[in-house]
């Protein structure tokens, strides 16, 4: 299975939200990262519309697989396995990827690995910085998730320390961008305005940072309301909105809480490094503040390049390759797409090898990602 580059050759498929991603890796080496995004189709709705995303996945699936194989310059018959995001995510969107991955693996006679989207976000860093230290501390922040995770073994043991109790961090960016009438998605545009603004101009609240609040959980709903009220008050008074200062001050509040809690989690758990993933990891202020605070605390910071932080197939392939390398059991052909797959289920192993009987989950909580829509 290993050639000169070393490690299992795995193709990964990701369709949990609005990106159709197909990546190919060999061990810790990235060979291809093909992504087709339907983000433009969602822009006028102000958020991801599940049915629009699912339709786009079906259109893009086979062409994106072809593109990835070409980019990697490998033959499908040389693959050691096919990995796919089994959840969490939008149910209908996940189902397109899971169905394609099954057909692909079956037709090629390769093992199938249904893996967890959040664990994949962590594992992708192996493509950038080599083997993950064990345990790894991870802060995942995007339009769908805001989680602090401790991963002693990325293939089998990921522990949730905290997560958002209301909005995801990226969602807060989208909503504030809407209040400021800056369009969707909100993250990049707010980051851009914030560079021209003063982060201390307005002191917006830091959610869940009181002495009795949960140490590792996040809340961005109160912040969102505070920013909206501040803007509305200005508008009501007939004053101009200082967009740059509002952007910078809002962003500062989000980033301050994220980095403070992540560094605290590292210290409390004796972990000397932190990885940050998810689309919000592309935020320049988050990167800068995390760098400074980690350095002050003697913590090594690992942040993959932005394209690997957003949803993509390479991250799924990276975790799949780790599953193969560690001899984790493959999934069955009746693998389900599970919109609320808990992060503790790093993958969905089959019960008796492939072709075996049903595999059912007993959990019933709803994951933040599986909300029907990102706007309220």
């Amino acid at each position: 299975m290993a050639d000169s580059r070393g490690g299992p050759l795995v193709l990964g498929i990701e369709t949990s939200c609005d990106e159709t991603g197909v990546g190919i890796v060999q061990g810790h080496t990235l060979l291809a990262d093909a992504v087709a995004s339907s983000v433009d189709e969602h822009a006028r709705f102000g958020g991801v519309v599940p049915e629009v995303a699912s339709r786009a996945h079906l259109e893009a699936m086979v062409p994106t697989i072809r593109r990835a194989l070409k980019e990697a310059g490998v033959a499908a018959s040389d693959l050691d396995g096919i990995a796919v995001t089994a959840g969490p995510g939008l149910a209908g969107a996940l189902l397109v990827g899971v169905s394609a991955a099954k057909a692909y693996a079956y037709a090629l006679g390769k093992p199938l690995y249904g893996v967890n989207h959040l664990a994949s976000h962590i594992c992708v860093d192996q493509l950038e910085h080599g083997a993950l230290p064990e345990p790894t501390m991870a802060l995942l922040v995007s339009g769908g998730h805001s989680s602090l995770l401790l991963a002693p073994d990325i293939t089998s043991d990921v522990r949730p320390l905290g997560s958002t109790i209301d909005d995801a961090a990226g969602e807060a960016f989208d909503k504030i961008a809407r209040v400021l009438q800056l369009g969707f998605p909100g993250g990049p545009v707010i980051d851009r305005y914030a560079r021209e603004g003063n982060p201390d101009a307005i002191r917006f609240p830091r959610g869940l940072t009181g002495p009795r609040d949960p140490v590792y959980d996040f809340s961005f709903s109160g912040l969102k309301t505070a920013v909206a009220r501040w803007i509305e008050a200005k508008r009501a008074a007939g004053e101009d909105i200082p967009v740059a200062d509002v952007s910078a001050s809002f962003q500062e509040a989000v980033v301050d809480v994220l980095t403070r809690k992540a560094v605290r989690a590292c210290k409390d758990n004796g972990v000397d490094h932190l990885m940050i993933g998810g689309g919000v990891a592309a935020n320049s202020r988050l990167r800068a503040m995390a760098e400074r605070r980690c350095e002050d605390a003697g913590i090594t910071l690992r942040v993959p390049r932005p394209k690997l932080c957003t949803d993509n197939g390479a991250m799924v392939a990276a975790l799949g390759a780790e599953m193969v390398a560690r001899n984790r059991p493959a999934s069955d052909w009746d693998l389900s797409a599970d919109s609320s797959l808990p992060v503790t289920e790093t993958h969905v192993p089959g019960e008796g090898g492939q072709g075996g009987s049903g595999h059912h989950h007993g959990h019933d909580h709803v994951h933040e990602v599986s909300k029907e829509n990102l706007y309220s």
Partner: protein
Amino acid sequence: MLLLALDTATPAVTVALHDGSRVLAESREVDARRHGELLLPAVDRVLAEAGRKLDAVTGIVVGVGPGPYTGLRVGLVTAATFGAVLDVPVHGLCSLDGIAYAAGLDEPFVVATDARRKEVYWARYANARTRLTEPAVDRAADIADEVAGTPAVGAGALLYDSVFTGVRRAGPEHQSAAALASLAAEKLAAGEEFLPDRPLYLRRPDAQVPANYKVVTPK
């Protein structure tokens, strides 16, 4: 010729293998919520029963709907992926045509499946092989005058039997990939055209452009 036919446009998850002259094996399971779980094991079972391997297949036949979207896509993406890996053509057929073929009627009739929300997907046929109208989605109550008394088959006709008063209770109720495969084999032999392997949704996604954001300041 070895055709693998599959359809997930109705509550049935159905797969069949056809060698150009007869159906070698078929699987039919009715479970509207588990298309994703049931399809691949059914393919595996049908191939095993016929003693064939997937790489012997010379063409994929897929029902392209109309049907409720989520399930419909399972069959379409599976068919497209098989077609790409095996490098064989993927022949699309209107799913209602498979049900019409299975009905075997030699007189004008309609096929109607359940589109949920009190609607049906339906089309008119001159006989089991000849569709007269494009498939449509309508509220059952709205087409009562058009279909009253006409022989009708399919789960939609059974569900709204006060509208489809000519309903044939003997069926067929759901799709059968064996019928779909047989129809495809006939069409291939006759050199007839197929549909592209793209979904017939017949409805736009439910999505609304949000009005301007809601003001949060208390009044």
